[in-house]
């Protein structure tokens, strides 16, 4: 590394490089040594900025090389590198002095073997299928007889000739060929543009709008057919308003457009067969149908005529229809007079049959029977009554028999109660007498005692002991004043009363005349 040693002192005669000089020297060596290389590796991160250049990594398990494809190179690529793809890249090595980098300028990328390509194809198919682009529900029905057929293919080559030839055989039609490259880098974009271009044609314009589109290409390698696997083509086919038949490659080749088309034809010739019916067959069929039409209407009329004749023949004559009823009418008319008489006689007989038995004896007999019946009932009634009486009497006797002892028992019980009552009465009477006597004696004794007391307390006894009671004018006088006032005085002694010399009061009262009278 003494090349970049910047010690100022010269160390011999080795030249001194600038950075650019050295970078340039390295660039020349690398570009000279690796002017054309093929590298096999896995594609790493891919980026494509607006510039159109393609930047990607090529790697194996240990190393990474930066790779670039310029815009022009990318446009020419058959297969565009995608992440994870195993590829063989062809190009040249160069350096990028501005970043001290070396890198591979890739001219072309080829899948490393068919397996890798198929794996990528399958991955893409699965992704588009997941979007629903291949759904059966999207498939359009082809028109039975298209007037205009659009063919997307190369105008030079066997394919378009085959298609036109087969169309001519079957049903010559108006064919519009949209010329495209059927392989190479331009293929996919041109095919997609052609499909969209046919769809963009408006009906009624100067160029007729196709009723069906055929996208066709002859057989080829997987790489040759690759354009028909491109997403842009698949999307254009899936988005086509016009029914689209795909016929790419041979029968065994399947490209992604086959999944997106409305019908897949194994070959371009087969596509023509699918597109149009056979004119002559149609003519024959139409003739046959026309014949059936005539036969149908003729037969319809003929059958009706025949039926009419048959019915007319079977229709009976009016006379024959009427003769039988008429005869019956005549017969009936002839019989009707006699029939009335017969009917009356018959009713009469019926009446007699019913009325005959209706006689008085019948009623009497009936009454007698009823009477007998009544009598029988009467007898049965008497007997029944007697039986009932008998039963009642028995019941009464039975109850009477039970009644006497009960009565006797009741009488005896009553007697006992009377005797008990008498005894009790006597006892109570004796007790009453005794009680009354004792009480009387007590009361008498008390009376005598009280009388003695009374005699002791009363003035009569006192009188005996020499005291006297003075009364004036009938009242007891106890004071001298009272005595002076009295008109008459009376003295009571033990053995009687003595009126004292009646002193005449000054104002004597007439009322006391008796006493006074006696005094005078």
């Amino acid at each position, binding site marked *: 590394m003494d090349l970049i040693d910047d010690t100022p002192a010269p160390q011999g005669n080795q030249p001194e490089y600038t950075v650019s000089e050295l970078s340039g020297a390295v660039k020349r060596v690398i570009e000279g040594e690796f002017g054309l290389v093929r590298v096999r590796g896995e594609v790493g991160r891919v980026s494509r900025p607006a510039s159109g250049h393609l930047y990607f990594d090529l790697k194996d398990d240990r190393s990474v090389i930066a790779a670039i494809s310029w815009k022009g190179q990318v446009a020419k690529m058959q297969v565009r590198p995608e992440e994870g793809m195993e590829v063989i890249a062809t190009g040249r090595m160069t350096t990028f002095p501005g970043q001290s980098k070396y890198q591979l300028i890739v001219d072309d990328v080829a899948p490393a073997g068919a397996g890798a390509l198929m794996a990528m194809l399958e991955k893409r198919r699965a992704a588009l299928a997941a979007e629903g682009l291949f759904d059966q529900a999207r498939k359009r029905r082809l028109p039975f007889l298209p007037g205009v057929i659009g063919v997307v293919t190369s105008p030079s080559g066997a394919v378009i000739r085959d298609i036109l030839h087969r169309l001519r055989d079957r049903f010559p039609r108006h064919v519009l060929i949209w010329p495209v490259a059927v392989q190479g880098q331009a293929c996919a974009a041109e095919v997609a543009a052609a499909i969209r*271009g046919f769809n963009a044609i408006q009906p009624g314009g100067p160029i007729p709008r196709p009723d069906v589109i055929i996208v066709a290409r002859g057989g080829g390698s997987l790489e040759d057919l690759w354009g028909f696997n491109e997403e842009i083509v698949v999307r254009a086919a899936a988005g086509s308003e016009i029914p689209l038949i795909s016929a790419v490659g041979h029968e065994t080749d399947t490209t992604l457009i086959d999944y997106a088309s409305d019908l897949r034809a194994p070959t371009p010739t087969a596509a023509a067969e699918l597109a149009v019916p056979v004119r002559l067959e149609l003519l024959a069929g139409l003739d046959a149908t026309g014949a059936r039409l005539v036969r149908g209407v003729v037969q319809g009329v003929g059958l009706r005529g025949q039926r009419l004749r048959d019915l007319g023949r079977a229709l009976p004559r009016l006379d024959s229809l009427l003769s039988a009823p008429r005869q019956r009418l005549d017969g009936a008319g002839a019989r009707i007079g006699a029939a009335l008489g017969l009917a009356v006689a018959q009713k009469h007989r019926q009446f007699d049959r019913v009325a005959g038995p209706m006689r008085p004896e019948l009623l009497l007999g009936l009454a007698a029977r009823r009477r007998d019946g009544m009598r029988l009932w009467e007898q049965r009634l008497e007997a029944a009554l007697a039986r009932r009486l008998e039963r009642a009497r028995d019941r009464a006797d039975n109850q009477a028999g039970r009644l006497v002892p009960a009565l006797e028992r009741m009488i005896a019980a009553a007697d006992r109660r009377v005797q008990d009552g008498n005894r009790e009465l006597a006892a109570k009477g004796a007790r009453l007498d005794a009680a009354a006597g004792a009480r009387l004696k007590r009361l008498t004794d008390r009376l005598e005692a009280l009388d003695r007391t009374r005699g002791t307390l009363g003035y009569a006894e006192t009188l005996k002991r020499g005291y006297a009671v003075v009364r004036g004018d009938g009242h007891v006088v106890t004071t001298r004043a009272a005595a002076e006032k009295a008109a008459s005085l009376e003295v009571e002694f033990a053995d009687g009363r003595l009126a004292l010399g009646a002193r005449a009061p000054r104002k004597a009262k007439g009322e006391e005349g008796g006493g006074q009278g006696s005094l005078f």
Partner: protein
Amino acid sequence: MNDKPTEKPIGAMTFEEAMIALEQVVGALERGDVPLEQSIALYERGAALKAHCAAKLKDAEEKVELIRAQEGRAVGTTPVEGM
């Protein structure tokens, strides 16, 4: 495809529509379950349908043209001969 081709004027029908309508007419006549008056009208319709179909079949002229395109649009055609 129109599900009811019989409601279309015959002149506007495609070949297939006309064929289907014709088959219906013929079928009805063959079954014989249409009144006589109607069967006459049906026959006339059938004849018209057949003529229409025949005209479509007669119109079988090959014409091949090459599209001239500009920026993805068809701007004209060039007749192609002898292919």
